[in-house]
């Protein structure tokens, strides 16, 4: 049929973000979230070694996640098993670089 009527039938496709949440980021790669109760020091070290962009490192009794360096590759998910899952977070902008450093306590084995 007439090509411009197709557009009228489809309606408005533009996202309404930020007025309404937008589902397009569902399922996209995102930084990991951890089960601190399942984290051990040894697992933390293995996770830090597995991260190719240096976003994970162990600092004493904490696993430090640098959100800024995370590429969402998912290797920590493979290594960590039940202790690691994608967080689904994408609104990660920050004014201060240190805000992007998240500390997860290594809880298991305490």
């Amino acid at each position: 049929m007439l090509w411009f009527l197709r557009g009228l039938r489809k309606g408005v496709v533009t996202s309404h973000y930020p007025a309404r949440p937008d589902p397009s980021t569902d399922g996209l790669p995102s930084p990991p979230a951890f089960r601190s109760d399942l984290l051990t020091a040894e697992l933390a070290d293995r996770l830090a070694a597995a991260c190719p962009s240096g976003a994970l490192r162990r600092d004493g009794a904490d696993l430090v996640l640098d959100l800024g360096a995370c590429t969402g590759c998912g290797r920590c998910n493979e290594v960590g098993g039940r202790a690691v899952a994608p967080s689904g977070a994408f609104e990660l902008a920050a004014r201060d670089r240190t805000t992007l450093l998240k500390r997860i306590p290594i809880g298991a084995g305490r």
Partner: protein
Amino acid sequence: MSEEQRVAAELRKRAFALFRRSLHIRTVDTGSCAVCESEIRLLSSPYYDLHRLGFFFTPAPRHADLLLVSGPAVRAFDPALLKTLEAIPDPRIVVAVGACALGGVFGEDELVHGSVDAVVPVDVYVPGCPPSPLALLHGLLVAVGRLEEKVHALRFDLREEAKA
């Protein structure tokens, strides 16, 4: 934060709020793999449509308000990046996007700085590899003060959910 830092942050917020509904963005790629650029380009698509928010891309730094930098700040590009920043009139905002620009992926060596804030002062950091267009929009809206930062409240420790 000290009183000085607080006042400075407040001043910066007010200055950046000048651009609430009309912001001109100049993008610079300091050596990225160009996927961040794809996402930035998608902002002009009908789905994300940054024009509805009053944001525009401009090639001329003289007309720009915001400098959008991606890439790990390759050293050879420093003069061009600094010239571009110098050419943008004050008040200006600098936003670094992507894991490379924020210090991940590449460490500092003789070819790259590793992160953009080693070369230019950065006002807003947008993580992601690449940051999806929505993450970019969030970052831009945070920069002009139309949205609040959320990341400080986000918890990456699932045990608290399990607890709750």
